[in-house]
């Protein structure tokens, strides 16, 4: 089963939930898809067993063949190519690897080379398998790195995906193909606002989902009212409690220290299985 953990905004405790969930089940793979700022490993201190670069193809020009006609630069929608009167420049961080320039070049001067945009880290913490992607600084394309992370999914495992925050393409790339999505939110007006946007997206891509309310007790009841109205199950409430907050600030997943919570997360998985029809 593949469960994605997402939230409409950062700082709702999404990663904490993903990590605690992963620690509460067996035969598990935790994939951190927040490749711009992966942080599940900070809570788990895994042993990194190996790393693998992630590449995208970008054009390279054989200047012996090029006659500086400028067709490639004209074609490129992303302005990744500049053609001067006797010089051609490629800007790999703007290229979207569409391959069009190579096709359009009348002199066949363009071929592809590999450009590194990120790294996959393969780690383990006890029985838990953790894989996280890290986008290179300044590289704008998170999606290919997320794809590379998701390629590591093993079908016979329980897979938890820690999604990036928000509702942009990287989030959709992470969540699509999951059996269930857990949305982590806060019972505040901001939490509600972002929850509504995320719910719309999930309804669009047709993935069953439920909500975990983190820091329950702060804010108001509007998140609950919204869930009731939309018939969205509230799967779990994590109260705003000193012990939990303290463990969080120490970077310790709280279910490791509070056995009661480990049970709650176990039960949560069972509930999710039912909702997902697995």
């Amino acid at each position: 089963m593949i469960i994605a953990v997402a939230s409409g905004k950062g700082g709702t405790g999404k990663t904490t939930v993903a990590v605690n969930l992963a620690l509460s089940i067996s035969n598990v793979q935790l994939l951190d898809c927040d490749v711009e700022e992966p942080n599940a490993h900070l809570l788990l201190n895994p042993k990194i067993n190996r790393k693998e670069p992630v590449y995208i193809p970008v054009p390279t020009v054989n200047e012996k063949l090029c006659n500086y006609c400028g067709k490639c630069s004209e074609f490129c929608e992303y302005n990744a190519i500049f053609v001067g009167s006797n010089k051609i420049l490629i800007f790999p961080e703007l290229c979207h690897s569409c391959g069009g320039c190579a096709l359009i070049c009348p002199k066949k001067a363009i071929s592809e080379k590999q450009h590194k945009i990120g790294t996959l880290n393969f780690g383990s913490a006890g029985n838990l398998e953790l894989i996280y992607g890290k986008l290179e600084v300044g590289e704008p394309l998170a999606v290919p790195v997320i794809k590379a992370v998701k390629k590591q999914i093993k079908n016979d495992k329980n897979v938890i995906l820690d999604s990036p925050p928000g509702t942009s393409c990287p989030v959709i790339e992470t969540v699509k193909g999951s059996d269930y999505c857990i949305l982590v939110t806060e019972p505040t007006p901001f939490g509600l606002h972002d929850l509504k946007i995320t719910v719309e997206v999930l309804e669009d891509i047709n993935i069953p989902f439920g909500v975990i309310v983190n820091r329950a007790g702060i804010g108001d009841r509007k998140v609950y009212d919204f869930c009731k109205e939309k018939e969205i199950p509230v799967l779990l409430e994590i109260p705003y409690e000193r012990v939990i907050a303290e463990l969080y600030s120490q970077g310790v997943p709280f279910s490791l220290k509070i056995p009661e919570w480990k049970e709650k997360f176990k039960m949560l998985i069972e509930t999710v299985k039912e909702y997902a029809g697995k």
Partner: protein
Amino acid sequence: MRICVTASGNSLDAPVEPRFGRCPYFIFVDSETMAFEAVPNMAMNAMGGAGIQAAQLIASKGAKVLITGNVGPNAFQALVAAGIRIITGAYGTVREVVEKFKRGELRETGSPTVGGHYGRGAGMGRGWRRRYPPPY
């Protein structure tokens, strides 16, 4: 000699626009006759690489000098590759800066004057950047 000035309007009396890739108009001025051509910037709202596209336009129009406010690293590289002299930090009207240039009162810059944007507003913080849907 052909000079390109980035401008916020389409005449010689328009103010210089400091943003190179995102300026509304490029004014190409013949420094001898002061005859000019105003070209609207099609890449003004481009997702990314506006500076590179602007450099491409200026090179294709055969300008030898660019007068503007700020130039980012990508555009800078492209302009240098095209052999275009770059003058930054200019202010006043298009006419004024061209006159100043002719009197030798403007200095060329040897490096980009603003940081990179990577096309998607990096530097505005993560939250902001993430709201931009990458066209991938």
